[in-house]
């Protein structure tokens, strides 16, 4: 990988990447997936590098996945969460990160509830920034692992019909998938309650459906987003019961998708709300493989970004 087309010290959003760069990450991830299947799963790729995981917003699965990826790459790791940091004492994010940088940290993996926080930092610090999710804006490694899974299972991405269903408005997963999939030539459909699926997405080239059936017919991939109970309290839809009935994927609505279509979910699942338990555990579900692939994708991202540090 000496003639690497990867030249960025940060991974902030898939919007910033070319199709070639995205494909290169996926190819690199495929190599790391092989590592993860060996008896000894550790490589020295990031030995001597320090990675700081800054999770300003709580996260379990993404944080664990990044942490394990860093360990498999032999990096030194520091974990920081908002609860235990001086951010609680009123220190600004920029000051916190500059302090971390002064300890000669090489990479910062950051989860933040504020949109653009990683972009704000990336232009102000020398260490590399990997976005582990910022508000409803971007979650590039989630979209990359989704695309990795699709490509691995169906052999391609170009020309596939991918339907993403649920609370699109508040979803960084939907936005990141949208840009990644569109760049690689997939047809993207968004569906869900019309209060949560803005039609403005049509201007980006997405098909927007108000009803589930239209989104499911002919789909090669159905990616279901977690529906958050707080959205019901904010009046976006009447109840999770009604949501499950109208927009949930279950045995009744399964008939609309292709027999070999993939069922995906970024987790954690509300069983029997957006997805019936039966289908979540069924043969078309690739939900746990997504988690497995997430590790390889994050190893690839950390490896590539670390290679571009000055």
């Amino acid at each position, binding site marked *: 990988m000496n003639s690497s087309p990867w030249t960025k010290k940060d991974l902030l959003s898939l919007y910033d990447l070319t199709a070639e760069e995205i494909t290169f990450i996926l190819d690199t991830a495929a190599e790391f997936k092989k590592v993860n299947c060996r008896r000894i799963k550790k490589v020295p790729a990031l030995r001597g590098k320090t990675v700081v995981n800054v999770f300003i917003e709580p996260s379990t699965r993404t944080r664990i996945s990044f942490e394990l990826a860093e360990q498999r790459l032999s990096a030194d790791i520091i974990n920081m969460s908002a609860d235990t940091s001086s951010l609680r004492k009123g220190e600004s994010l920029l000051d916190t990160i500059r302090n971390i940088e002064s300890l000669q940290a090489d990479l910062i993996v950051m989860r933040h*509830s504020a*949109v*653009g*926080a990683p*972009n704000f930092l990336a232009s102000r610090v020398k260490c590399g920034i990997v976005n582990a999710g910022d*508000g409803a*804006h971007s979650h590039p490694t989630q979209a990359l692992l989704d695309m990795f899974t699709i490509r691995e299972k169906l052999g391609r991405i170009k020309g596939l019909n991918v339907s993403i269903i649920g609370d699109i*408005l*508040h979803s960084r997963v939907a936005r990141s998938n949208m840009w990644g999939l569109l760049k690689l030539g997939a047809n993207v459909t968004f569906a869900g309650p019309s209060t949560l699926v803005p039609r*403005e997405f049509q201007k980006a080239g997405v098909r927007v459906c108000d009803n589930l059936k239209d989104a499911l017919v002919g789909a090669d991939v159905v990616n279901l987003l977690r529906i958050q109970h707080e959205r019901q309290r904010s009046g976006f839809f009447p109840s999770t019961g009604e949501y499950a009935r109208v927009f949930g994927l279950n045995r009744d609505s399964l008939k609309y998708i292709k027999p070999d279509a993939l069922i995906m979910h970024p987790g954690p699942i509300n069983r029997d709300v957006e997805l019936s338990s039966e289908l979540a555990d069924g043969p078309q579900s690739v939900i746990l493989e997504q988690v497995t692939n997430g590790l390889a994708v994050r190893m690839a991202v950390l490896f590539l970004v670390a290679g571009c540090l000055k």
Partner: protein
Amino acid sequence: MNKTVIYKGARVVDPARNIDQVMDIGVENGVFADPAGLKNARIVDLSGYVLAPGFIDMHVHLRQPGKTGAETIQTGTMAAAAGGFTAVVAMPNTTPCADNPGTIELIRTYAQKGGVVKVLPCGAMTKNSEGKEMSGIGGLKAAGVVALSDDGKCIQNHELMRHVVEYSRTFGLPILDHCEDTVLASGGVMNEGYWSVFLGMKGMSPAAEELMVDRDVILARMADWKVHIQHISCKDAIDTVRNARKAGIKVSAEATPHHIALTDAEIKRFDSNYKMNPPLRSEEDRQALIEALRDGTVTVIATDHAPHTETDKTVEFDYAPFGIVGLETAVNIAFTELYHKGVLTLPQLISKFTQGPAEVLGLPMGTLENGRDADITILAPDEKGVVDSSQFRSKSRNTPFNGYKYTGCAVATIVNGKCVFSRIPALTEEKV
């Protein structure tokens, strides 16, 4: 000191009196006087420049008392002078809130001591601008306020707002309203539209502004009194004001330079110097605003000068306070975006800074008529330059226009016959 001056050679533009010609302007003891009657006057040659009535910025936050880390009356009025303004209307959202005669008195005292240009205080409509109880409007009038506003906030209770509009008529005080349905806009950090959807940021729906502009038009009609829509920013609200004005309702509106020059596409930079309220809107809204300036629906350009410290602004976009400084860039932007792009003629442009605000405020300003205070702005419409925020007189630097290339600017500012800012030799010598 020679107190009698004749300015010669300038193109004199006084929109309120339909004057646009090269002529002499006389000043005696700080007021305009017929130059023919002035003996032993000092002659100042202003050939090549435009001489206009002193510019009025009717929407400024001077931050004093309260947030003097961001601005003081002294630094704010120095910025005003450098930007070509001879008078500013000071918004009441200070700490304490300017909802009482004592605070107005304090502001006037600071202005007398350190103010470089005229400070026209605006009183709060409601106590602490909380939108719950009417403030002592009669007392505020007696203390010298020129208008009423809860700027930054908007009275949500329509009945209270109705009473404020009706009651203020008694005192001849116009209402300057920041139109925002706060529930609809709640939590928003940018305009709701394609870019908020794309970026995943919480949007502020244009409907939040439109609803309150509709409300204000209705109340202005019912009360037969002046309601001025501050920083109007969306197309449908502009259409509402246009129709209301055609129907003879006493509604007026102002445009800010940033809404004239920028759109919400800039938010993708995640730079909090593009964060203000109302937010930058869509290109369609921006075009509607420019059209409204052209057709006279919007009669005022005002800055909403809102200084914030670098510490407060250099944070995640979501957490940054709303607002940008504007006094030292407004005229440059207006010339560049409106005059040089053929939207407004020179007299029309000058009117938005002079006759327009003077009419809304009902004050004997914004004209060069003999007997009025000699407030003058000298302009160089074709001078080119680049905005350098490090040179601002303002205490704050929160502007998205650093590096902005402009054509046209103010080069000197004269208040009551006294030169308070000048970049031209003819006047610099006179400076005291």
